[in-house]
């Protein structure tokens, strides 16, 4: 099993040179710490920033510079700032190449539910629905199961949908799963796990790829000891 940082590390390995990436809050935001230094990758923040840099050092925060999580951030060389209409033109118009987003549930056909849990008293949606319909490579980064041990990958979502059939790939603490027209395909398993263990933890049909392999992550991201 991977730690939260381990999931973020694995996602970061898949972001290519020249990617323009929107990152959600939670595990997705951790991806910024593991971007390959030899690749130029631009991080987009929905409040009108392209080229988000590291979080600002304490005492050096700029009050006019926050990201979508309201962290005080810095800008990288080549960054730009703009208004919300242009920011969502980038998102909805398909100009960003990748999004990494958290999820409450993902269905086998790529349906995403990540904005409202049943019984939640005050709802909020933010930019999730725009990101889900507008960004081609929509990657989910999440724990495989709830803290009660129930699979977050289902045949059909039970929570209200963010968008139908939009997720392309799922990164969890147990493995890497592609959403294909033929259903879910397990590509990689976390260190120490078997494909069978991932199948058992998944409440949707899961085909194990012929070339399914163990995930290549440094041992520091192996969270078995931490989680058990």
């Amino acid at each position, binding site marked *: 099993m991977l730690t939260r940082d381990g999931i973020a590390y694995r996602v970061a390995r898949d972001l290519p040179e020249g990617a323009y990436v929107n990152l959600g809050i939670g595990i997705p935001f951790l991806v910024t710490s593991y971007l390959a230094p030899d690749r130029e990758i631009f991080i987009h*923040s*929905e*409040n*009108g*920033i392209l080229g988000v840099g590291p979080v600002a050092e304490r005492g050096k*925060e*700029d*009050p*006019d*510079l*926050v990201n979508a999580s*309201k962290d*005080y951030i810095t*800008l990288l060389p080549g960054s730009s*700032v*703009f*208004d*919300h*209409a242009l*920011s*969502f033109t980038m*998102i*909805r118009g398909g100009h960003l190449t990748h999004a990494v987003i958290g999820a409450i549930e993902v269905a086998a056909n790529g349906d995403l539910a990540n904005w*409202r849990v049943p019984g*939640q*008293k*005050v*709802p*909020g*949606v*933010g*930019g*999730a*629905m*725009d990101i889900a*319909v*507008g960004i081609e490579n929509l990657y989910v980064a999440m724990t495989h199961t709830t803290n009660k041990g129930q699979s977050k990958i289902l045949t059909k979502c039970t929570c*209200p*949908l*963010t*968008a*139908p059939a939009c997720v392309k790939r799922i990164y969890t603490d147990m493995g890497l799963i592609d959403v294909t027209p033929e259903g879910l395909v397990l590509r990689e398993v976390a260190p120490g796990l078997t494909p069978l263990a991932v199948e058992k933890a998944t409440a949707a049909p899961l085909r194990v790829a012929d070339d399914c392999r163990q995930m290549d992550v440094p041992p520091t991201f192996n969270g078995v000891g931490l989680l058990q």
Partner: protein
Amino acid sequence: MINKTLATCGEAVANIFDGATVMVGGFGEPGVPGRLIEALREQGATNLVVIHNGAGFHDFALGGLFKDGRVRKLVASFPNYPSATAFRDRYLKGDTELELVPQGTLIERIRAAGAGLGGFYTRTGVGTDLAAGKEIRVIDGRPYVFETPLNADFALVKAERADRLGNLAYRYAMRNFNPIMATAAKTVIAEVEKLVPVGTLKPDEIHTPGVFIDHVVEIDRHPRLFEPHYEEAGT
């Protein structure tokens, strides 16, 4: 001579009436017109419809309007973060209604109003609860939902610099909703950190041309907004 400047936020918000629809710029803290909101709280107008991305922080600035029970309805995309305590209380008591709008749809509805458009079709929200009951149209084989324009009686915006003509320049992430809201209300009021002589802002630097602006007030930054550590410090 055109002079859109006013001396105080109180004068600028004096005509906001009971039942008015008021757009409020800002995302997080950058670009929130905290001094104008404070003046509106003091001015007393009530039964307001507020259009803003979030729902304010605690009981100051926009949060203060919720605390005082002055907002009949909020139109927002993300009102459910932990520090939106005053809105949360009013919403759960049933005092304030919420119209939840996806963020990209919210800004585009405002943009449509400002641009004189009758609405637009978007893929955002199709197949979800937020498109329930709305018109769906298939364009090039894909379903889109129809969204209507969103305008207001007043817009309260914030910029870094302005001149007496109402030309505005923003800094970094202050821009967010402000330039778009400035196009979509009958009366647009800007609070700015610095008033400069006409000509100081170069044509290339002006993000909101003065044609959109009715009033400009120079202010000091709101003391409780824009302070990264105030919550930890317990102030």
